[in-house]
């Protein structure tokens, strides 16, 4: 965990006072809605279909139990008793009242969380691997650098009015769990031949109506130069990014229109001017940030404790353990993923009671720490393996032991037309129906890893382009239709999915997905070949035939 110091606390409190003043001026009519809109967006407040939506940042997906309890409190006190975890390590509340927002922010500020820059045309929450600091095989903890970037991007005086939103993601692992290739800037921590720590810098990734996989602008930049290099990229973007058309304003369009070589050259010229300036990080500064991260003191524990051996006889426990428990860097410990995708439930939602109960379990079993992943699931990052059986029972009691992590019912979905004013079609009911269709665990397990991502419109908040199966809601003659893509992925081998054919109406989506899955089961070379690999090997044609033969 990163511990706020006096400087961080002062800044966040000053932000709350500023926003309180802005809300007051809006309510008195001193600010027009147009003027206020930008200010509220910079504080994570959207106007949705029914009410204001409030988005809170969970920087690099790390939460303390106290922070999670406070989120539960906000859900209960200011909202309708639940929250929605998003694909960018944020949580959203959908029924907040404008006049109460400053109080909600002040409550959050007490535990060091905020909603700064969770929307608007500025740098958004810096996201990272939800297993940072605990996954085996990591270069180093990417959260140190995420925090360096969080501070650098917070209230940046030059880059708070960019052409469009701007998202960073960082990974320090060969297996990318942060989806860095679909971000405006993706950073991959690695070491060069001299064993120095630095980053591969990728730029111009993003989904939306013109999706792009990010391109490498620089294979290695030394850690001490990361801020000046990022500033060079942002400055080129702020000066030359398009502002004439909102759909062409992301940095991916600038990179595409200039070409990566020309863009890289512009950035290089800018960087040469500032690389030796005040942004160069010295060791003391990096160490200072590092020193404010605390780590658990792990006990020496066996990999296979007696408790685990005994519990192995319980098939339900085993089913959950095989699905939701992952290797940890410390012997005797595990990372436990908490599925927020119960059968028939909206993906990513948690009730205030679940949040409180999970905070208690984190205190008891995970050194008071909780993680949030971009798949809209949570994790307990430091669970002693001997505690797994007890933890499972406790999770099961609060409805958080669904053993479907990474399976076909572990669906990513945006809020869609049920909440969102931009949506063309519903997402949540599609997800709910699919979880019912694939509710049988043995079937889901037989299918294996399969990511379904659903977006209710072309803005792609549900990351449909990079779902193994992507579902995009469109409107056709006033009705909800859905385009289906297959073969997308968001990891280190990121790729955009390919459309399998004409859009299908709402009530046929689940049937089509079942057809695709059945086709895969018939076509896969071995039971180990994942859906996405079968699509890679055979292309979309056999799937297209199967789906459209009878339609």
């Amino acid at each position: 965990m990163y511990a706020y110091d006096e400087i961080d606390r002062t800044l966040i409190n000053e932000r709350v006072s500023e926003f309180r003043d802005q809300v007051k001026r809006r309510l008195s009519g001193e600010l027009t809605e147009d003027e206020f809109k930008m200010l509220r967006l910079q504080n994570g407040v959207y106007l949705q279909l029914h009410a204001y939506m409030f988005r809170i940042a969970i920087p690099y997906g790390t939460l303390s139990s106290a922070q999670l309890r406070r989120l539960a409190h906000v859900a209960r006190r200011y909202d309708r008793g639940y929250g929605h975890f998003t694909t960018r390590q944020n949580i959203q509340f959908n029924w907040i009242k404008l006049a109460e927002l400053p109080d909600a922010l002040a409550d959050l500020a007490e535990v060091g969380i905020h909603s700064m820059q969770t929307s608007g045309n500025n740098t958004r929450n810096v996201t990272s691997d939800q297993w940072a600091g605990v996954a085996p095989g990591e270069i180093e903890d990417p959260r140190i650098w995420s925090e360096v970037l969080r501070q650098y991007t917070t209230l940046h005086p030059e880059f708070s009015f960019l052409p469009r939103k701007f998202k960073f993601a960082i990974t320090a692992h060969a297996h990318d769990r942060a989806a860095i290739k679909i971000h405006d800037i993706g950073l991959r921590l690695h070491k060069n031949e001299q064993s120095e720590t630095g980053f591969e810098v990728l730029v111009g990734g993003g989904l939306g109506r013109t999706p792009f996989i990010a391109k490498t602008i620089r294979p290695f930049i030394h850690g001490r130069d990361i801020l000046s290099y990022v500033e060079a990229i942002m400055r080129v973007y702020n000066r030359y990014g398009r502002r004439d058309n909102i759909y062409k304003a992301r940095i991916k369009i600038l990179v595409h229109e200039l070409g990566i070589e020309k863009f890289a050259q512009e950035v290089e010229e800018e960087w040469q001017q500032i690389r030796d300036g005040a942004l160069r990080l010295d060791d003391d500064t990096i160490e200072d940030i590092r020193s404010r991260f605390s780590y658990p003191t792990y006990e020496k524990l066996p990999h296979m404790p007696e408790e685990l051996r005994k519990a192995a006889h319980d098939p339900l426990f085993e089913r959950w353990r095989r699905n939701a428990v992952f290797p940890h860097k410390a012997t005797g410990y595990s990372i436990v993923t908490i599925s927020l995708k119960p059968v028939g439930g909206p993906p990513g939602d948690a009730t205030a009671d679940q949040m409180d109960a999970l905070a208690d379990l984190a205190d008891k079993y995970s050194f008071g720490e909780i993680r949030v992943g971009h798949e809209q699931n949570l994790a307990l990052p430091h669970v002693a393996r001997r505690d797994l059986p007890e933890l499972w029972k406790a999770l099961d009691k609060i409805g958080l032991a669904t053993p479907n992590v990474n399976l076909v019912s572990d669906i990513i979905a945006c809020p869609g037309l049920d909440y969102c004013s931009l949506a063309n079609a519903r997402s949540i009911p599609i997800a709910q129906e699919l979880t019912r269709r694939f509710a049988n665990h043995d079937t889901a397990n037989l299918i294996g890893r399969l990511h379904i991502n659903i977006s209710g419109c072309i803005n792609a908040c549900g990351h449909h382009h990079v779902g193994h199966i992507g579902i995009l809601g469109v409107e056709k003659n006033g009705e909800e239709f859905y385009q289906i893509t297959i073969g997308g992925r968001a990891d280190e081998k990121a790729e955009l999915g390919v459309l399998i054919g004409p859009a299908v109406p709402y009530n046929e989506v689940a049937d089509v997905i079942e057809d695709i899955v059945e086709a895969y089961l018939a076509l896969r070379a071995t039971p180990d070949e994942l859906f996405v690999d079968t699509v890679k090997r055979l292309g979309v044609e056999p799937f297209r035939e199967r789906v459209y033969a009878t339609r």
Partner: protein
Amino acid sequence: MPLVKGGKIQTDEYVHVADDAELPEAGAVLVSATRFLADPERVLRRREKVGVIWPNNRDVEDLVPYVERLALVALVFPSFRDGRAYSQARLLRERYFFRGELRATGQVLRDQFVFMLRAGFDAFEVKKQADAEAYAQTVKRYSVFYQPTGDGRVAAPFRRLQLRHSESAGL
């Protein structure tokens, strides 16, 4: 629109001269970039204060030959959402050492003051009278800053190290 300079509302000493109007005999003038660049020497040789209104889609690099002789550069915010002038301001101040008055014009609202100050602006043509009057209290909203810019304020990383050092020195 009220002009805030030196922390106070002031009368603008500059006369804004239209492109087709004659330059006045005496007094400070503010001219468009088009007029200025058409014949910079003609404007500058008046030996009175000269200011240029610089649009936000034109590289400030074109101004570099004249920065020592210009008393004022007015950068433009056609909308408060358009942040190009923040980059222009920092470049003029930090890279090209422009020391004259750097004025923010256009849709300038109180909620941008702190960002503008940090980017190097020191004068503000404010859209609303109430915002101009609230200048002094608004700019005190923030006392800590995470990023170093050329405005001289101590950014958080350095302040932290100073604090650590004074702690370890027992001060």
